[in-house]
Structures are given as structure tokens and as C-alpha cells.
């Protein structure tokens, strides 16, 4: 069976995650060899995922970790006092 572009689009995400079966994978790859549009869509999607996963895209607020551990420290201290009183 020859895949059409819109069928390839349906499987792009599964293809990227390597969760399509071998036969479908081969069909998609045959299509990609001859279709510039689908190749560009696949490449751009992968590129976008690569950029979103970069630590420079989503950053944590300055001091987030320090504030979290400070609050945790006071919780641990309170908890310690309670168990000592028991």
C-alpha cells in the first residue's frame, strides 16, 4: 500500500517515538525518500522537540531551589522537635 502525505502525518509522533511496527516504518520511510514536504515536517517537528527540551528554553526562577530547601529545612526542624517531644 502506498501511503499518502496525510497518512504519514497521522503517524509522525509514533514514528519519532519509534512506536510504529516495522512494516509501517518501512512504508513511511519509502514515502519520506520521495516527499520533501513530509521530510520537512518531520525534521521541523524533531527540531522543535530538541529545542524545547534544552534547559535554556524553560528555566527555573532564580532562587527557586534555595527557597524550596529553606522551607523544607524548617519543616524537618519542626518535625524533629515533635518527635523529640513524643
Amino acid at each position, binding site marked *: 500500500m502506498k501511503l499518502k502525505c*496525510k497518512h504519514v*502525518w*497521522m503517524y*509522525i*509522533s*509514533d514514528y*519519532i*517515538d519509534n*512506536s510504529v511496527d516495522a512494516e509501517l516504518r518501512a512504508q513511511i520511510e519509502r514515502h519520506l525518500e520521495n516527499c*520533501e*514536504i513530509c*521530510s*520537512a*515536517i518531520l*525534521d*521541523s*517537528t524533531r*527540531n*522543535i*522537540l*530538541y*529545542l*524545547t*527540551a*534544552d534547559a*535554556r*528554553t*524553560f528555566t*527555573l*526562577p532564580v532562587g*527557586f*531551589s534555595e*527557597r*524550596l*530547601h529553606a*522551607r*523544607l*529545612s524548617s*519543616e*524537618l526542624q519542626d*518535625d*524533629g522537635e515533635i*518527635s523529640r517531644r513524643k
Partner: protein
Amino acid sequence: MPRANEAEMIARILAGERELFHELIRPYERMVYLTVSAMLKNEADTEDTVQDAVIKAYRNLAAFRAESRFSTWLMAIALNEARGRLRRIKRENVESLDAELEMYGGDFTPAALMDWHPIPSEALESKELADKIKAAVAELPFLYREVWTLRDLDELKTEETAVLLNVSIQVVKTRLHRARMLLQKRLAPVLKGFAPQPAPRRSWLSRRHP
């Protein structure tokens, strides 16, 4: 962190070495923050919620059962806290919001392009690029953003995501596919402008190698 080390650490914390809890959660801070942030979209609410979730995890550590990963258990607490906060902020039922979004009859076809010039990660030195990507993620419908964050930012497995969200594996896959296609559609035309300029054609090459 290897699970065996984690299990040992948890046993020691429960036996009284409380301070070790700092080290136990350190590897997961970023993951928890990004996930809660994707749901609440507000820095102050996110930070409070993450802190509440971590404290809750500490107080309930004795209830942790080693058959699940500690990270999955911690994320389940964080998601629960975030949902609770969302209900309080929005004063509406999150489940009905979910149902409504599930009906979202969007168009999930990607943006068609003739070619794609790869954008290297160095381009992220430009704050403008990172801002455009974050804006596109923030615009995703809630249910798609939630799955996308767990899968593509936190790099959780499909199965773990399904367990955390209490949905089927197929639902995770479908939402992830839609999220990725919406991001491609929104971002591909914008990001083209960030591709490095092609090197000027070096005509001497063709002269030397006719």
C-alpha cells in the same frame, strides 16, 4: 538516581536521618517545577504548589510503596496539588474543563514546508527564540500541554504518563501527537527566521572541481 540507592535513602530517612530528604528530591526539582508550571502558568502559584507538594511527600513518605518509582510517586503528589490549586484559582471544576477540552475539535495537520534548515541549540542564546517557544507551549489546550510536558519535557515514559493521569496509553499517544502537531504548526513558520544564514556560495570550489 538508581532505585536501590533511593530505596536505601528512603529507609534511612524514615529511620530518623531526616536531612537526607533534601538529597532525595534534588534530582526531581526541575521536573516537578516544569510540570506544575505548565498547569498553573503563574510563577508564584507554581512555586507555592511545588513547595506544598514536596512537604506533603515528606510527611507521607512512610506511605510510599517501592513498587512504583519514587519520581512517579512524587509527580503524582505534585499533579494532585496543582489540580487542587487550579480548582481554587479558577473556581471551576477541572474535570468539566477537561471534558470540554477533550471535545476541542482542532485541526491537527502540520504546517507544510518545502524544506527545513535545522536550528541549532545555540540559537537559544537568543531570549526571543525561547520566548516564542514558551508562548506556543502556553497556548496549547490544557490536556495536551499536560501530556506534552510529562512526555517531552520531563521525559517520562508513555506508560508512566498514563498511570499518572489515569488515562489509557492510547489517550496519552493521541494527546501527545496533537500537542506536537500544534507546536509544529505554530512554531515552524516562526522558527525559520532563526536558522543560521547559509554560507555564501564559494564559486572557487566549482572552478577547482569542474
